[in-house]
Each structure stands twice: as C-alpha cells, then as structure tokens.
C-alpha cells in the first residue's frame, strides 16, 4: 500500500491514481453479489482502499463478475464491459467464471469466461469470503504496477476473435462491433 509515497505520485501519477481509485460497477451477474454488500459497508469497508460501487459502466474502471454466468447474462456482461471507458479491469469472482465450477456440464452456463471477455484476476472458491475481494484488489495493484493488467489491450487487439466467440454462443448481437472488424462471412455455429 504505497499510497502515501509522494515520489511515486510524481513519477507515475496515472498508475497510482488507477490503483487507489477503483470504482466497481454495481452489476449483479450471479450468486456472488451477496458478498459485495458486507465488503462496502462497515464490516469490511472497501472505501478505505478507494473502492466504491458506482451506478453506470461509464464511471467505472473495475468490473467484478460474481458467480455463475448464464448464457443470457453473458449478453449483458459483454454490453456492460464494452461500455466501460479504457483502462478497465475485470475480476472473475468464484470458481464458476473460471471453468464453470459445479455447473461444468450444464447446457445453460458459460464455462470459460475469458473466451468471451478478458479477465485480469481470478478469485477461486465457491463464493469466496469478502476478504478475498481485498486480496483481488491488492493483486490488481501489483498487476497495475507491473503493467500486466492489460486485459483491455488484449481485448482491443484480438477483438475479432472475441467477437467471433461471442457470436458463436449468442447468435447475432444487436449492437455494432466496438472496434472495426474485417467482416468476412462467418456461419453461426449452433
């Protein structure tokens, strides 16, 4: 927690500011959202680290994907992720986004979330405890320090592949592609 080291602030203000002002988009994607209220209220108080929930993706730079991701929710997750402004980070919360968790063989859940949107950090556990969110935040700090939290850069460079995977699962997407895509004809695999 090097928030009070003034020299670091003058050397790399962007990195320090990004580290100590993570605004989480308050979007309940799955069963894990029940862990977020204790985190932001007086029991664990995430605001000490500058982490506060905000209402719209436009104001956020951290996206906490909590719990299993059903096919229908994936559409909303992709839309929200694309509406967040650039340096944005995502954290997969719980084992379901990692590899499907206990719904590994279900027809209706998404198994590996990072096939569709880039994920910077994972928290294992079938609903990890609130302290695990702080572990994720500190982990994110080190990633930002080491310039490794570049999920959004990966998304921008391989957008075509991400888009193709998304359309494989969700069929035709209503909104236009975020970045220009060389649209050669692609059959939709059912």
């Amino acid at each position, binding site marked *: 927690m090097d928030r009070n080291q003034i020299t670091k602030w003058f050397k790399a203000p962007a990195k320090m500011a990004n580290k100590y002002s993570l605004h989480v988009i308050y979007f309940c994607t799955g069963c894990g959202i029940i862990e977020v209220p204790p985190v932001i209220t007086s029991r664990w108080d995430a605001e000490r680290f500058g982490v506060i929930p905000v209402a719209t993706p436009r104001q956020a730079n951290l996206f906490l994907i909590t719990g299993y991701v*059903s096919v229908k929710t994936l*559409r909303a997750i992709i839309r929200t992720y694309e509406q967040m402004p650039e340096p944005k980070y995502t954290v997969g919360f719980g084992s379901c986004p990692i590899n499907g968790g206990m719904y590994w*063989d*279900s*027809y*209706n859940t998404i*198994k590996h979330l990072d*096939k569709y949107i880039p994920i910077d950090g994972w928290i294992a556990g079938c609903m990890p405890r609130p302290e695990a969110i702080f572990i994720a935040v500190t982990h994110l700090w080190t990633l930002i320090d080491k310039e490794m939290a570049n999920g959004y850069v990966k998304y921008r460079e391989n957008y075509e*592949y991400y888009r193709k995977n998304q359309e494989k*699962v969700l069929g035709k997407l209503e909104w236009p592609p975020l970045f220009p895509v060389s649209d050669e004809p692609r059959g939709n695999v059912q």
Partner: protein
Amino acid sequence: MNKSVKEKLESTFKDIQVSILEDSRIAVTVENHGVLVILRFLKDKGFDHLALLSAVDWIEEKEFELCFILTCYMQNDDEYTDSQRLHIILKTRISREEPNLETITGIFPNAEPYEREIHELFGIKFEGHPRLTPLLLERNYEIPPFRKDFDTRKYVKDVFDKIPFVEDKDK
C-alpha cells in the same frame, strides 16, 4: 373431508383412479382427453388456485406425465377448514412420440407461462396456447434439454468446448 371429495369424484367420473396419500393430499389420474372437464369440475368445487403444472419424462414407457396441483386460494392463514388445506394432484399421461395436449389457459389463465416453459424444456406442444415462444433459454436446441435422452455432457463438448481460447488464435 377428503373422503367426501373422493366419493364425489368417483361418482361423477368413471375412468379415473382416486387415491388418498397422507392426510391432506389426493392423487387423481385421468386420461388426457378428460383433463379439461375435471379441471372445470374441481374449479367449481372451490379448488380455484392452480399451484403448479409440471411434467415427468418416463422414457422407458415412452410417455410424458403431466401433473396439475390444485388447491384453494387461502385468503387468511389462521381459521382454515381442513377441506381448504387439501391439495389435489391431477396426473395424466401422453405419449412421447406426438406429445401434444389441450391448453388449460381457458380455465386457469395463470398456466400460460408454465405451459410455455414445459413446451421449451420438454417439447410438449399445447394447442390453442396464445404464444408458445421461448421463455428462459437463449439458444435453441434440437432435443429439448429436460428430456432424458438429452446428453448434456455431449452438448457441452459439442458447443462450448469447440470454442477456441483467444490466446491460441494462431493455431
């Protein structure tokens, strides 16, 4: 109390089997063409609340079984006569090859989403239903997922595992 209901049912309808399960539950099995008549009869008797409509896939006997659970709409909990605590489970069998049935939204309008769900997940067609469009699922499936012959592991292997990771895009 449920004895009188049993006699009333057996007296008015001929080819039905009525059996009393524990204290407040009656199981009634009936042919699929007689369902509407019995539902109308029970509704007039005061069982005006269709609590649930569910289906069971008996794959060995190649039949679907539909269960209608009826009860009285309880106004207030405390003073209840024992007849009002009665649950009636109406069961009927339809063949698996051409699984279709009359819709009951005429009698119980609240059955509309139940029937849409069963149509989507079991493939049972309800004639006369206002809109049999998909309710829950995002994708469409050749074999409806809740049928026993739907192999979910194979489906996952075909759809989700075939989608490549973005990292190994150059392979």
